């Protein structure tokens, strides 16, 4: 299928996936940014539940969604359960976005493996073979620990309009991230809350069951 439209940095479910992949990390006070990111790369299947809240000026009220997300070496799946069922599947070469209620089936051919537009730095951290140094060329990165929590913040060095101006990932000390906040230049904001459900073979089985329920494409 021809891809329908491009995703940018505000590809929220994908960011959610990227952040969720950080969850199992056991951050400590001694962790540096480099050592934390070194362990981010996806090694085994993981299953998370999430809650997303969007604060958009074009919406008359904040919007909330909940669902499950899976990461594995082959793909990333975001299964939104409420308010409607929506699936997003990212493999090395393609991203599918399926909203059955809207009869929407969108497919995006990726120009590089896992290179979801706007998500390249995160996907590179999760699925790439290089470290975070490339990220620092395009983003101002800050990493801090305070009040039993660690906070990672990325801000693009250049703005061209509607994209994200700040992304903040945080988590409890000794745990992976459990919160993500995205802000755009016009004041819109999205927050994510994450929690790990399972990992390893169990998560792999659950991922497969979710894929099996995917409509034929």
């Amino acid at each position, binding site marked *: 299928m*021809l891809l329908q*439209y*491009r*995703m940018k940095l505000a590809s929220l479910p994908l960011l959610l996936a990227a952040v969720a992949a950080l969850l199992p990390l056991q951050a400590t006070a001694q962790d540096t940014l480099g050592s934390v990111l070194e362990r981010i790369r996806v090694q085994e299947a993981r299953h998370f539940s999430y809650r997303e809240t969007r604060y*958009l*000026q074009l919406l008359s009220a904040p919007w909330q*969604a909940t669902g499950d997300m899976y990461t594995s070496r082959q793909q990333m799946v975001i299964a939104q359960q409420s308010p409607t069922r929506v699936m*997003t599947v990212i493999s090395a070469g393609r991203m599918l976005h399926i909203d059955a209620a809207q009869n929407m089936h969108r497919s995006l*051919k990726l120009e590089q*493996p896992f290179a979801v537009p706007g998500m390249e730095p995160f996907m590179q951290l999760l699925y790439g073979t290089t470290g975070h140094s490339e990220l620092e060329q395009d983003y101002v990165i800050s990493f801090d620990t305070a009040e039993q929590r660690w906070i990672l913040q990325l801000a693009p060095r250049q703005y061209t309009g509607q994209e994200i101006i700040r992304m903040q990932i945080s988590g409890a000390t000794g745990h992976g991230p459990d919160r993500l906040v995205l802000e755009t230049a016009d004041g819109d904001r999205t927050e994510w809350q994450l929690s790990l459900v399972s990992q390893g073979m169990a998560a792999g089985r659950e991922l497969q069951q979710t894929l099996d329920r995917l409509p034929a494409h």
Partner: protein
Amino acid sequence: MTRAWAFLLVTAGLAAAAIQLTTIRTDIGDFFFSSGSADPGFLAGQLQSDELARRYLISIAHPGIDSPTAMEFVTALQQALAESNQVRRVWTEPFSQTDILQLLHFYAPHQLHLLSLQPDSEVSRLLGPAGMASQAETIRAALLGPDPSLVKSLLTDDPMLLTLAWFTRAGQAYSRPDADPAHSAFFLETQLAGLDIVAQQDFQQAMAEIFGALNSRYDGRFTLEYTGVPVFAVNIHAQVRRDITRISTLSIGLVILLSWLVFRSFRALLCISIMLFTTACIAALLTQWVYGYLHGLTLALGTTLIGICIDYFIHSMVHAGASTGADRVQAIRRIWPVLLVGGATTLIGYTALSFSGFPGLKQVALFTGSGIVAALLITRYILPELMGLFRIQVQPRINLSWLLAAGAGTRSRYLVIAIITGCLLAGGTRIHWGDDLSGLAPSLQQLADTDRLIRARLSSIEPGRFILVTGESMEAVLQTAENVQRQLSRLQQQGKLDAYYPLFPWVASRQLQARNAQAWNDAMNPAVQERWTKTLTDHGLSAAAFPALTTAPESLLKPEQAMATPVAALLATQLLPDTAGTTAVIWLGKHQPQALLDTLRAIPGARYFSQKDNIRQLSRNYRKKAQTMLVWGILVILALLSVRYRSAVDALRALTPAALSIMLLLGLWGLSGAPMGMLHLIGLLLTAAVCVDYGVFFLENRSGNRVRTFQAITVSAITTAAAFASLGAAEYPALHALAWTVAPGVLAGFLLCPVMLGHTGNGESTFNHIK
């Protein structure tokens, strides 16, 4: 002797000029299609279309390799190929991510002009309660989807976010077949002209090396396949070259062998070879001068020139026999009139060929016709001195004069006529006329299979069948194309058409854009805005944050503006420049041809075009013309002989061996059940032209020595048959038709001479009244 030496010098000069100046082309379109009439002209252009001719379809097989690794490999290969300065672009789907973003923003301000092919009903639907609710739901879903930033940026120019759904609908036409996990396929367009054989050959080599280097890093687990016009062009070129080499070598070898067997003289062989070579050089240079190139097939078919021209040389050498000096000149002068008649009848045959309408044969006719004239002049003015220079005194070792006695007699004559007539009656009604030119095209079955497989992985569009839209201007073409698309949508809904590549909505006529804008503006009023505001609010959207609905802007989208966007890559294969203006092509997926034909009949300027059907029709036309030309050719030859012999009956006698030979061939082809096509008819025409020579030589018997004349005809017939039979060794199927028509036809015509034309004594001419 001076003339002979001068001739040798001129031959050397001609050889150098021919090598330097001759350009060989192997594009099959040049040979089969002329640019004279509309469809073949378009077809020729289509086959040579710059965009399509530069394009490769590349497939990488990776069975059993995991998806990320395969993707990594294919991406690396695409990047490596794209870095080549011979590559214009590499792509998998019509638009990259960047292209899509650019197109969404480009088309967003034009949405109201490109609303629909049915403006009134679409505006009513869109601004009705259900339409507004649907659009508000689309906006909400998009805002809550993966890319709200993009949605917000589009709303500025497109407050109802029509662009997203519009782009989705437009993009559906380009859907690919279901993905095959064991293969990845992509397109590559070169900077090189598709028919620049040498450059494309080098590029294919370079591509294989790039792939090989990358594949070695993956333990050679990937396999490369590719297809496209340049692949066929390179392979056809190679095949034609192989055929030229093979046929030339074989025919020259056979002729030399036969000449040796007949004359047992190397000097005679050398003399004949020089004269043949000079003849071929003159023919090549003249053809190059007239056409600007020489087609490979002309050269392949032209090697039969050897078989025809050698007749004049051998016939004259046999008659000059053991003579010396002035006697030799006298001997050739004596037979000169009969050589002229023979040459004229053959020329008539080839001239008739050029009227068959088959463009390639016009060149063959010029090549061979000029060769015949050159050969006759060499025979008359050079041969006697060359024989002196090479000190040639030949006496043919082959002597079939016993046939003169064995075949003579009224009874045997009637018996032969009865057998041949019976054969024609039995087989004539069974002749199956085949008009499939594809059977004559180069036999590249493996390439064709690969091509079909790779295309099936990349597109659901059928190559070779499409709709042609023509008009006096771009506006007229677009209006007609829009009419066609309305009908195609209907056929799609009826299940009679799977898919098609549309022109609308990428480009639209001014008329349609104005109608869309008018329909929208007429409907726009404060009540509509109020209803839209309420609909947005009802769907949980903050109406105050949305831009207000406005009337359509005045400026219309111009085709050239669209051609400056990534859409140009698609439109370049659909909007083709034509001598008469612009031609639009709407490519088709699987469809019911009759339904399309019925639908398009009512739309002036639009035609359903099936490349295969068109070529078959073209072939049928060529064949019918060739049939007519065969009859006319024989009638003109009959008229010429009647004038020469001042008797239609005598002329008919001279034609008898040729006519019976053709009847026999037709009967045998019918009995064999093999289809006959245009090239078989051409073969029959050539057979007639050559066999008439034998009839004339035999009857006129200018030397006054019947045995010697028959000896000369024997040698000529054997060498001619050998030269034509060598065409049977070609890979190119078209040449087989000539081989298996002319070679047996010439032998039959030769053998029929003594039977049908009788024996009137060793020293007599049948036509003593002719001087």
